[in-house]
């Protein structure tokens, strides 16, 4: 397997991982909002909280993490961009 192919495989797997997490917090958890709303989280009903803040915060953290992880993959396979002089 050439380095480029391997780089692309890693990139693809990272993308899929993040999309799975995205799916859970974008859809799955809200599907059960009615059921988890009886749980209280710091004063909020949990179902409401996840839609108002929880999922949003997960997405933000996820993107900063994704940006770092993808860059690490690029560096490992030597395909990252040169620093600007």
């Amino acid at each position, binding site marked *: 397997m050439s380095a*480029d192919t391997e*780089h*692309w495989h890693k*990139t693809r797997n990272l*993308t899929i991982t*993040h*999309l799975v997490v*995205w799916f859970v*917090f*974008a*859809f799955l958890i*809200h*599907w*059960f*909002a*009615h059921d988890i*709303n009886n749980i209280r*989280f*710091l*004063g*909020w*009903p949990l*179902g*409401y*909280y996840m*839609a*108002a*803040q929880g*999922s*949003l*915060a997960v*997405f*933000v953290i*996820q*993107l*900063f993490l*994704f*940006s770092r992880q*993808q*860059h690490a993959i*690029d560096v490992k396979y*030597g*395909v*990252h*961009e*040169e620093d*600007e002089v």
Partner: protein
Amino acid sequence: MALQFEGKSFTQSLPKIYAIYTGGFLAFFALMAVLEQFGMSARAIGLSFVAFTIGIYAFIGVISRTAAADAYYLAGRSVPPVFNGMATAADWMSGASFVAMAGGIFMSGYPYLAFVVGWTGGYILVATLMAPYLRKFGCYTVPDFIGTRYGGKLTRFCAIVVLMVASFTYVTAQITATGTIAARAFLIPYEWACWLGLVGILVCSMLGGMRAVTWTQVAQYIVLIVAYILPIVWMSGAQGFGWLPQFQYGPAIERIQELEPLLGVGTAPVDTVAGLSALTTLHASPADGALAAWQFVTLAFCMMVGTASLPHILMRYFTTPSVKAARSSVAWSLFFIFLLYFSAPALATLSKLSLFDPNLASSIFGKAIADVEALSWVRNWGEIGLVAIRDSNGDGLLQVNEFFLNPDIIVLATPEFAGLPYVISGLVAAGGLAAALSTADGLLLAMANTLSHDLYYKIIDPKAETRKRLLTARVLLLVIGAAGAAVASMRLEGILGAVAWAFCFAMSGLFAPLVLGVWWKRANRPGAVAGMVVGLVCGWGYLLAVRNGMTPWLGLDHLRFGVVGVVASFIAMVTVSLLTPAPDEETQRMVDAVRVPRGESLVSHH
């Protein structure tokens, strides 16, 4: 003005420039607060806020004007990720986010949170599937990517059509929002206010293209975020929930849930008032059942996939210095967007509580109707037909289902009815205007650029020189803007509705060719054309059918027609691609190169 707009020294001095600007804006706010104490009238305060902020945007637009193609289309590709994040956030957060969203949550509670989930979750798709790859491609516009990846003038033309349909729908909503705010601030008829708003938009985007719009949008972001968060903090402090409301308003939800049965929220009003509605939905309780859950996730889905297909947003990531910067810029965009969205439910909750809670001076329910009607904010908004009171049971007291309002005014009116000083209302009006103007700028630019670069230069006259192309772009900007203002002054659809349509149009036509262009090498030209045409036609056809009385399939109403469009688009694109020959070797090599950050961009512009 000897400011340099590109290069290292400019980039390094950006934090200083915007710190001074923010300080100046806060000083202006303080000055207005002091003048209010000395008796400056509400009208004069509103007017000063609007005039001051628009003046600054125009100033930035003028000093960063340009006639160079790279600066005009890509802001010289030198916008640092954090600032690009702020500019994207302003570009993104429109009149709908600022003016209408909290109002929707206020009125309808939990189901409207699908918008905030969707409008943030979409950025995961942008970052993982789109932005870095499109940046590597090095295109000027979104149709430029589609036209180059798949080849052929017809492909490019289809992409132009989808972009125009989606962006034009979107821009009319922004001009509507601008018109509403300007009408109230200047006390002029709404139709005039639309045209006035248009002038403000054009000054920023006409002169300097992407470069001027970028630096103006950063300034607009600062105004809009201050304007959104300040009233929430103030209300929260006044109601005793602490000074970090976003983390502390949980008990306010609990209090609302206690008060709702006492006030009788959930009883249908006897009277109806055209265009206005009474509170009938519980605030924090999702409806039970699969249809409610399905409607929540499909709305979120449309907003997410729509986000990843909106040309004016994707094009912002073409301006970063590198692929890596494009990725971190998406993360910063979402961070800045998050600041507003996780505050919106707090705003809706606290403003609802200030009307509900009998322990607060601002509460209105259960009080004598004559007293409530005498309140100045009820009178002011009642005069322009956005608030109404009907004593249905004739007992002289105000019940929840006797109070009608237009959801779009919640954010603008909250400072008044929560009893905050008027200077806050002026600030909020300025923030709403910044939100609407910045999005309108971005949209007009996306449309004008694609018409000048893709339609005029790439399809009609490939030999046209830069000067002529940029001139065409500016003339087209005028024409489209005028058409948008004309449509907006007719008020065809509410702000939130029109915005949801724009998302659905964009995802119906553009999502499949964009995502498959990077992720599926086998995708070819006939497939892309089929995907765009079938997607847009099915989505649009379904919208028309639903609007004309067809029973929606599976609860997919007019806000969710993008689901139908995008599914049709994928099926058509995959089927047609597989039935026709694979793309040539050069295209395959191009896709390989897009997947690797290092190296020259694939499109070279001269």
